[in-house]
């Protein structure tokens, strides 16, 4: 593939700045995480359940969340917007290079850029191992994959925005507006249930949270890939300056319709739990029992979204139930209201229904909820043992990390940038 995109990306000041920032940002997160992990490892109660996924991986890689949200869009927009404004696009459109090839080349260049951006994370994880820290391959790879998917979606969105709109500034505003919109949707959908919660589960931040919990979600992966393809199809339609407005709109509408159809038919809540502590799964005996319930299970949660119990219940119980029970329907009757000031006797109760029977409970504790549902379904709750996850406490200090991330990395990037931009020898003359 003949293309300039890799050179353009790696030679651009915007990308150099992204790389420059990535090191100290990842380093800062890593150093803070190692310190906090060491502190937590000192307390016996906490230490026994300490997981490097929560303690080290998520906070360290969390730095990429910031990079992807605030810096990566500008780098991707730069790739497209400069081609549009400098006349390159018009020249390339008259060459044998097809628009889709040009876009593929941009995505390949951006993925190569992502690999370079991940070097600080790789250094952090190697340091962690050198300190004697534990890493589980499955949850580590899954989290990196989650950030990668988020990166791909963000790049596709930025490319689409830069293709549709005139000017890099307009494209940047559009991408940031989209991001803020997804945050608003995420916040608004909390504790509401229904279609809005279903849609909010597919915002980039919400999808990433699943990976951070150690879940490999089929629907999240499929929707991220489909969204990226749709955005690139829209980009292709608008980058083809010879296409009529009608053709561009028809292509975009078809792509969006395919995405909507995929969203409608994709099986939700199909996921694999790759977390080492199996935090997204009930015990094997409970899972087998719950999977035998053939009738729909309806749960009516009389809790406001702002109530910590609702959050606790959603995180620790409903997430697991959604993965296990075949037909689970969750209702939030207080959706959209605080309900905290209403004199409703039902507030705080959770109503379970299945097979024409109903039971009410106030507990959000996993074992009690399981007993309620299994008994309601006419099943006998199994004997449950203690969780066997041993935890991986480690009292280590982040030695050498500050020098590597705050001194060596920025210097290496600066030197690489100067070398990349220095005059050629006579080879092109």
């Amino acid at each position, binding site marked *: 593939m003949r293309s300039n995109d890799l050179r353009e990306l790696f030679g651009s000041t915007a990308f150099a700045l992204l790389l420059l920032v990535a090191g100290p940002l990842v380093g800062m997160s890593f150093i803070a995480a190692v310190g906090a992990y060491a502190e937590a490892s000192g307390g016996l109660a906490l230490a026994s359940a300490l997981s490097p996924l929560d303690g080290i991986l998520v906070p360290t890689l969390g730095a990429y969340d910031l990079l992807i949200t605030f810096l990566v869009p500008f780098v991707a927009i730069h790739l497209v917007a400069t081609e549009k404004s400098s006349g390159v696009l018009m020249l390339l459109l*008259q060459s044998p290079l097809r628009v889709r090839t040009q876009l593929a080349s941009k995505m390949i260049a951006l993925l190569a850029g992502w690999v370079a951006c991940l070097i600080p994370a790789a250094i952090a994880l190697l340091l962690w191992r050198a300190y004697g820290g534990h890493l589980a391959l499955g949850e580590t790879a899954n989290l990196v994959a989650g950030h990668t998917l988020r990166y791909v979606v963000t790049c596709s969105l930025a490319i689409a925005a830069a293709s549709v709109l005139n000017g890099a500034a307009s494209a940047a505003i559009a991408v940031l507006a989209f991001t803020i919109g997804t945050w608003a949707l995420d916040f608004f959908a909390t504790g509401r249930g229904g279609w809005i919660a279903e849609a909010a589960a597919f915002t980039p931040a919400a999808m990433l949270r699943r990976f951070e919990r150690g879940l490999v979600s089929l629907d999240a992966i499929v929707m991220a890939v489909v969204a990226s393809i749709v955005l690139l199809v829209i980009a292709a339609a608008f980058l083809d300056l010879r296409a009529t407005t009608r053709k561009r709109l028809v292509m975009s509408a078809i792509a969006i319709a395919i995405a909507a159809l995929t969203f409608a038919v994709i099986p939700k809540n199909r996921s694999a739990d790759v977390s080492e502590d199996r935090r997204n799964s009930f015990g094997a005996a409970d899972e087998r029992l719950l999977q035998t319930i053939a009738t729909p299970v309806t749960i009516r949660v009389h809790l406001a979204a702002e109530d910590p119990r609702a959050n606790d219940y959603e995180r620790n119980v409903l997430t697991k139930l959604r993965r296990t029970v075949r037909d689970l329907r969750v209702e939030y009757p207080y959706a959209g209201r605080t309900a905290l000031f209403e004199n409703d006797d039902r507030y705080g109760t959770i109503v379970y229904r299945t097979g024409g029977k109903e039971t009410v409970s106030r507990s959000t504790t996993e074992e009690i909820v399981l007993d309620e549902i299994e008994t309601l379904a006419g099943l006998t709750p199994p004997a449950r043992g203690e969780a066997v996850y041993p935890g991986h406490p480690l009292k280590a200090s982040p030695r050498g990390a500050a020098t590597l991330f705050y001194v060596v990395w920025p210097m290496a990037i600066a030197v690489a940038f100067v070398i990349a931009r220095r005059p050629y020898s006579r080879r*092109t003359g």
Partner: protein
Amino acid sequence: MDDAPLLRVDAISVRRGGRLLLDAVSFDAHRTEILGVIGPNGAGKTTLFEAIAGFAPLASGRVAHDDALFYLPEAIRPWRERRVGWCLEFFASLFAREKDVAAIDALQLGSLLQQRMGSLSKGEARRVALALALSTPHPILLLDEPFDGLDFRQTRAAMELLRARAAPGRTLILSIHQLSDAARVCDRFLLLDHGRAIGIVDEKNVDLEEVFLALE
């Protein structure tokens, strides 16, 4: 000049934002000919080129050409971060060709090959753009203001190069606002005013300034 038209523009109109930018413009261009499109600012020269190249949608009319055409827009400065030598090699390679050494020499680009595109003056960037266009294999070239920013010597050198490139069978269509330049290099002239083709001037010795003033 070959009699069979290589490019036939038949009553094309372009409308943008409710404004009629081109109004039923027709003309032919033949093999080996250099056709100049002249007209005052806002006459529709760039729109005409964009319409012929397919970058501006036609409201009506049609453009017919059996051979491929290449359009070099005005005032482009591609790949600002890359060096001139790289740009020339890269662009030619897209068409599976070598960089056009003869054009590089004729346009005096040899000393600029190590320079970044972004550091070039307006005239230097225009000469590089001309070299890019000439490195394409397309039999029809549409060049929008090819001599813009060039000094007298450079303009003469560029004209000689264009003539040499038209002779073997290429068709060049140039939009030129400098009438003296147009008179020196073009075989025929299409007069454009307010989006309409006022006429075709077939004679080389006609006083273009008089014609131009008449358009105003």
